[in-house]
């Protein structure tokens, strides 16, 4: 009984600590939809692969999205013609390299500032390296989904059209709705058409053309977007916190200690955990915190770096952008690089 209450207290403390950051992330990303003009941003992207990947990785500062929102943005960037390294860099690094996530990590690991710094440095390094690797592929056709390739070849980026709003024929869903921001999920078991998580907004919901909308409508849009993201991400956060609390209370201490102190096993366990738990990057540092006492610093970093890059939730979404092979390479490369970096840390530094 005591065990249960301890577990519940840990669970609640994780939630209470994480809730403000989740709220901040949701409000920030909802608000920024109004202010950042990605078309102008695309024009300014450097063409050099290394520089492009680096800049792409840092664009997260302008789009403080966690991994739930970065795929649609990466997809839009790619369709609007940014170089691949920029899009890949953004896809991998944006969930980590943004002010809210950095602040949340700092909150959680105040006593170990090196975790905060290394999280940013490693994420940036890995995203840039993978971005550069992908820059070798100049022809996008083999790596992206045929629908996107066709789109890139024959269709110029769609300007949001006022006429389209208010209609929702199935054809519209196939193209223009994908250009909208927000959280998406694949519909149907067989991996059908991606659907916007907040697709039930009223017709005024087309944010890309919302600049002309009156203030009142904008506020309503902001409100609706926030409520839906809070509901969906909040639920994921609850499940993640419950897992963390359960592991802390239920897992035999000897097992955790033996797994957590080995330089290799600890990293592998945390990499698997990062993949399985798929908790939002704005709150994942609190999840990792509950392992900080028993797991090596390298493995905590592995969780914090790899977790935002790979996300089971968004694999379906990524499939709407890349071919399965590409996603596999992307994840494998990210996993390997994270493993190597953090192993070096475990063996030689800490």
């Amino acid at each position, binding site marked *: 009984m005591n065990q249960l209450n301890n577990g519940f207290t840990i669970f609640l403390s994780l939630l209470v600590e994480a809730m403000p950051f989740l709220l901040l992330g949701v409000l920030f990303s909802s608000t920024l939809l109004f202010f950042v003009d990605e078309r102008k941003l695309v024009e300014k992207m450097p063409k050099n692969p290394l520089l492009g990947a680096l800049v792409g990785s840092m664009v997260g500062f302008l789009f403080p999205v966690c991994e739930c929102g970065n795929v649609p943005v990466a997809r839009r960037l790619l369709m609007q013609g940014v170089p691949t390294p920029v899009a890949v860099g953004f896809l991998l690094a944006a969930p980590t390299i943004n002010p809210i996530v950095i602040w949340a990590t700092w909150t959680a690991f105040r006593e170990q500032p090196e975790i905060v710094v290394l999280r940013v440095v490693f994420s940036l390094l890995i995203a840039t390296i993978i971005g550069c690797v992908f820059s070798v592929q100049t022809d996008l056709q083999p790596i992206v989904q045929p629908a996107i390739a066709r789109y890139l070849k024959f269709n110029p980026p769609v300007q949001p059209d006022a006429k389209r709003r208010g209609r929702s024929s199935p054809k519209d869903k196939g193209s223009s709705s994908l250009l909208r921001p927000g959280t998406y999920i694949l519909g149907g078991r067989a991996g059908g058409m991606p659907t916007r998580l907040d697709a039930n907004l009223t017709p005024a919901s087309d944010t890309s053309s919302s600049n002309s909308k009156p203030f009142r409508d904008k506020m309503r849009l902001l*409100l609706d977007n926030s409520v839906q993201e809070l509901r969906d991400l*909040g639920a994921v956060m609850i499940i993640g916190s419950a897992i963390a609390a359960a592991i802390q209370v239920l897992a035999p201490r000897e097992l955790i200690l033996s797994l957590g102190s080995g330089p290799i096993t600890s990293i592998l366990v945390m990499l698997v955990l990062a993949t399985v738990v798929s908790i939002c990057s704005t709150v994942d540092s609190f999840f990792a915190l509950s392992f900080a006492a028993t797991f090596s610093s390298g493995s905590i970093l592995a969780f914090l770096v790899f977790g935002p890059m790979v996300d089971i939730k968004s694999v379906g979404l990524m499939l709407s952008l890349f071919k399965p092979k590409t996603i596999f390479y992307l994840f494998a490369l990210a996993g390997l690089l994270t493993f190597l970096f953090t192993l070096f840390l475990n063996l030689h530094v800490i």
Partner: protein
Amino acid sequence: MTKSQIPSKFLSWLDVLAITAWGVLLLRYWLTNKLNLLIHPNYFWLVIVAGIVLLIIGFAKAQELWRLRPQVIAPNSQHITLFAPGWGSGLLLTTAILGFIITPQVFASDKALQRGVTDLLSTSRLQPQSFRASVRPEERSLVDWVRTINVYPEPDSYIGQKAKVQGFVIHPPDIGNEYIFLARFVLTCCAADAYPVGLPVKLGTNQERYAPDTWLEVEGQMTTETLSGKRQVTIAATSLKKIPQPENPYSY
């Protein structure tokens, strides 16, 4: 896949309820002084602001739902969420209700023992921080003592110093019958990372007199003892006084 309007309206109200409930829960923890059982005081303001903002969002959404006609709210029937409709907000609401019912508990000796007695008796996670080295020994708190000993670990240099500390009792299994362990939990962020620190106390009597989790104020002199095969700074108690559990049981 047409849904009637009533369930979708119900789902929208469920969102409102879940968000508002969380706002109320956060503010309630603050007003009932329970926040210090959950998180570090540095972040109280964040939680308070979050509670207020959640309430604002909840009320704004409620107002919108109230004003709009049902057919306007009726969501797109194609709507597919990460969870089945109502699940996300249902989960949020259920957790908030559990939060209202179950009071968070102060960690006690069982939790400290689960964290590992070996940790208690050898190293702790405390890193050297700013502390006043000039503090008179009897004014040091338990955490100050552990910090000091971490920085200057030579047990002999403390022999004879006076100590007056407060903490709760733990009975580690591999410590002698004449000893107890006096501990406090330290929080750096939230209860999930609470870890115990403390010192062994040498009693004149059997440890059974002081049940686990009893809060004590111990006065005595520092000495060294070999416990679990390791030389430890130990408090040789001259007086042990039972005290009520402090309002804020954690150290930071």
